[in-house]
């Protein structure tokens, strides 16, 4: 019996106007990439409250991916810049909490970049698989002093 391979659970927040369409394009083009991501569509990457990403990790995600429009292309002008600022500060915080760099990514993927989406997904899944499960909400052994 082969050993079960760890399949990372990735939560992906994709903006409606760019990355989500890229995912559709990859799909209609029948591009193959690992199915590990649970995609959540938001209207803009600027909609992303850091609480969403924190909750994703706390509730069992092994990795969190944000996909938004390239700088300058945001459907709402500046939303993706807001996302960029929040992403970096949040990244430092989750790193301080013990979550490895490769688990948390921000990528700019435009509507026509189905292929880039595929590459990013393959790369992320492999990197997270290499680190291993996060299992943030696993039962914790609490040792009391003797």
């Amino acid at each position: 019996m082969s050993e079960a391979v760890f399949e990372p659970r990735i939560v992906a927040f994709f903006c409606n106007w760019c990355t989500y369409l890229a995912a559709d394009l990859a799909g209609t083009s029948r591009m193959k990439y690992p199915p590990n991501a649970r995609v959540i569509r938001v209207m803009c990457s600027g909609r992303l409250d850091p609480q969403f990403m924190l909750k994703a990790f706390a509730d069992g995600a092994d990795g969190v991916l944000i996909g938004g429009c390239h700088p300058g292309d945001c459907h709402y002008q500046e939303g993706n810049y807001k996302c960029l600022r929040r992403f970096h500060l949040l990244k430092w915080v989750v790193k301080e909490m013990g979550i490895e760099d490769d688990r948390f990514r921000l990528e700019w993927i435009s509507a026509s970049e189905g292929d880039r989406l595929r590459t990013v997904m393959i790369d992320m899944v492999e990197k997270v698989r290499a680190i291993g499960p996060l299992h943030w909400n696993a039962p914790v052994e609490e040792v009391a002093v003797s």
Partner: protein
Amino acid sequence: MPESTSTRRITIDPITRLEGHGKIDIFLDDEGQVERAWFQVPELRGFEKFAQGRPAEDMPQITSRICGVCPTAHHMAATRALDNLYKVTPPPAGRKIRELVYSTFMTEDHALHFYFLGGPDFVVGPTAPPAERNVLGVIAKVGIDVGKKVISMRRRLRELTSLAAGKAGHPVFGLPGGVAKRLTAADQVRFQTVAADAVEFAQFTLEVFENVVLKNSDYVNLILADFFTHRTHYMGLVDDHNQVNFYDGSLRVVSPEGAETVKFAPEKYLDYIAEHVEPWSYMKFCYLKSPGWKGFTDGVESGVYSVAPMARLNVADRMATPLAQQAYEKYIATLGKPVHHTLANHWARVIELLYAAERMKELADDPEIIDPNVRTIPTAVPTEGVGVVEAPRGTLIHHYQTDERGLITKANLIVATQNNAARIAMSVEKAAKGVLSGKQVTEGLLNMVEMAFRAYDPCLGCATHSLPGSMPLEVRVRNRNGETLSILRRS
């Protein structure tokens, strides 16, 4: 060794009318003699650990949470450590505002202890029913007008601390090189008014003490009782004239005979003071490196020493303000010097209350206090700093090491009551033996045992900011919601 079957055990849990958690376990043999009494501190939080990684300028507000009764003490020790860390000196107004707020705080805290914490034992009586043995009983005894006066005085003092420092509970004003906010002329008038009333109030409190305690021969006998007496070394901050100073100075140690053994700059504390660990308490016990740790014993050969009011008055040659000096002279004339009777701390505390109020008035009257220049911006790259103040409950040392950005890499805190920890343990055991041995144990007598620690006005949250740690006995498995899934115990 199996537990003795003829041993009776009495536990006082929790101890009350102090800051922090503690319990006292008393073991009696079948003749009713006290074999042993343990003073245990069951709490701690780990400040020295979680200070690591924090910006040093946050330490005054983080360390103030070591104690919400004496937050200003920690805030001030931390602020002075920051001065040392950044090699920066506040401008005169900055320093004076700090000392003014500090004197205001000392007045308020010492008054709190007398009326709310330790005082009830004397005003209402040590063996009075527990429901009366508290500030409400004090108010019932001294009358509602006096009670309101006490409450009002405390409120006014705390309002002033809030005025200058943001909040009385966890002030915010300390910065390396000064304070965050200047005082206006209107602020000064408020300080002057309250300070004048505070001096009167302190004198009134001294009168209460004299009338209620010193004129009561039972209480005087209690103060002088051998089972409430220990002969140890004493330590405290003194200024250049060997006068008590809460804010700044050198640390002076005197022997049980009252002779100065050493006087040192606070930054050198590691050469003179060390901490000892016992398996039965989370609180560590400070001792003098010379003569060293010899156990829980009195005497010049033992490293056990004491701090706080009685110690400070032993260490000083005189008080820096006139009314306090008068009171001091009377105190020494009555008890001699050095004073070894632990309950005399209550008297010494009221004398310090008077000094604090007088000092508050001196600073409030100083025209420089309203100078708008209250900050020196530091320019040095930080590495290491030590700050020391006299907290109400004793010498308080904050020692920080940082990286070049000023983030804490290491923090060492010697906190007031820790300096007294060994003597407190000794006092509780000696009092238990003296008060309970061969007697019918009553609730009132147990309170008299508690009086042995209460005189030190201990702050056990302060004393146990840190954790020594140990080996596992009990394993609890909890899920992320905190629900206990299972408990495993090693027998």
